[in-house]
């Protein structure tokens, strides 16, 4: 029972961490970033490069975030800016970008699986059972991340400007907010979060050119179900992640693998605006 509880909690945390970057971008920019999976991959490879060069494994996370931020700023400028009024085309362009990133990674690192050192391995004892320490740390990370994003959005000037742009872009511009800059920074932040997430999940995953792809669709579904809000995403992660674990445990892990997709499609049919609206 305790295991099941921890499974649900840790799985949801992972989903939350992975989807957060996608949500920030969709929330502020109204844009679905199909290169999200590729950004996760870039994060994984950043971790590989960092530990390969002999640096401390904890450095992988800030390093990946930095790489992601720079990448995001460049991508926003070159690819996304011309596409703001063509949101469906932006999905396609970012998907194409994902293909390109995967190929570039293959050129540099080859198709094979790479490895990065884990900051922590082994198990910790909790509730009389031994449980993966890294997974427990991810719960902590998810909580901190959720709090930090909330703080960023609700207690900083950038957050205020970003929220103003989300709610009414024209009014925000009329008050002197440079919405173009807000978008660029937001995309940089989203990409940074995605890459950091990529680094955060490497202790449990392999690093290969397609490592991010399976996460893309699930994150996308979660974000839509969340209604594009932080508490909504937490709720969606718990709900759908929990459903995935329950189905995997009690029915079959194979059906568990498509639980999120199917459930999200159903939820969105009933509540098109997602969980946190209407």
């Amino acid at each position, binding site marked *: 029972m305790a295991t099941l509880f921890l499974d649900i909690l840790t799985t949801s945390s992972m989903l939350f961490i992975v989807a957060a970057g996608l949500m920030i971008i969709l929330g502020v920019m109204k844009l679905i970033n199909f290169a999200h999976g590729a950004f996760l991959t870039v994060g994984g490879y950043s971790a590989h490069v960092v530990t390969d060069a002999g640096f401390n494994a904890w450095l992988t996370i800030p390093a990946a975030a930095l790489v992601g931020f720079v990448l995001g700023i460049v991508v926003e400028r070159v690819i996304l800016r011309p596409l703001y009024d063509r949101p469906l085309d932006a999905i396609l362009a970012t998907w194409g970008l994902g293909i390109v990133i995967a190929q570039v990674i293959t050129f540099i690192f080859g198709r094979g699986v790479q490895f990065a050192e884990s900051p922590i391995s082994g198990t910790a004892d909790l509730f009389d059972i031994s449980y993966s320490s890294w997974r427990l740390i991810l719960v902590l990370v998810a909580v901190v991340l959720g709090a930090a994003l909330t703080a960023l959005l609700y207690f900083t*000037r950038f957050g*205020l*400007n970003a*929220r*103003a742009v989300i*709610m*009414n872009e*024209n*009014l*925000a*511009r*009329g*008050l*002197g*907010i*440079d*919405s*173009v800059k807000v978008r660029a920074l937001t995309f940089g932040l989203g990409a940074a979060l995605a890459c950091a997430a990529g680094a955060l999940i490497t202790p449990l995953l392999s690093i290969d050119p397609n490592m991010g792809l399976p996460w893309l669709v699930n994150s996308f579904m979660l974000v839509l179900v969340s209604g594009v809000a932080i508490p909504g995403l937490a709720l969606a992660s718990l709900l759908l992640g929990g459903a995935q674990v329950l189905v995997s445990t009690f029915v079959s892990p194979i059906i568990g693998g498509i639980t999120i997709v199917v459930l999200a499609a159903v939820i969105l049919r009933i509540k098109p605006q997602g969980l946190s609206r209407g």
Partner: protein
Amino acid sequence: MSALRKPESAESVLTVEGLTSGYDAAPVVRDVSFSIAAGEILVILGKNGMGKSTLLKTIMGFVRASSGKVHLAGENITNRPPHLIAQHSVAYTPQEYAIFQDLTVEENLRLGVENDKLLKERLEDVEAAFPRIVERLRQGAGTLSGGEQKMLLLSRALIARPQIMLIDEISEGLQPTMIARMAEVLQATKEKNGVAILLVEQNLPFALSVADRYAILKIGEIVERGDVAHADTAATLEEHLRI
């Protein structure tokens, strides 16, 4: 061009020359010219759908001017992006969706100033004009009454301490007492800070009580203009604006 138009002078804050703009292919604003000096209130009068709001939006850069020029303190700002124009010490209060309903009152005010420190310093401006707003800083702006929302709107423009305010139908839907208060605040602001104010209105009594000069917009063109001080204007204006 009207003979009543003031000659351009050094203190002219905003000058609009031959401005034409609109949506689709149809111009909504046609060949409009005027200028406002510091410490002056100009009101553009006209009925709904005559292009008043579009005029303000064109000045602010939201609607593209197809010809003509807008100068702000001597600098040509025609068709600049809105946020750059706003950063030129311009406070714009649109008519619809003018406050962020889902933000708190305080957050709405914060958006009026460049940084959060200025807010604290200038909160007394708001306190002086609308004490009720300062009492409700923590409240969601959407929960304010219609009149309070208008106060918030004007407060947000006040604390920006702009050189010019562009105000779109602030009196709409307000009670007479409230309208009078608005007029007082605008007058005081003009006198105290030497702000230039461009009002767009269809409420004639309010407009005449506060403005120095007026211009009447009809189907996108200025058809008449003059000084409010000339008392006989009221009757002519009534003719233009009656239902």
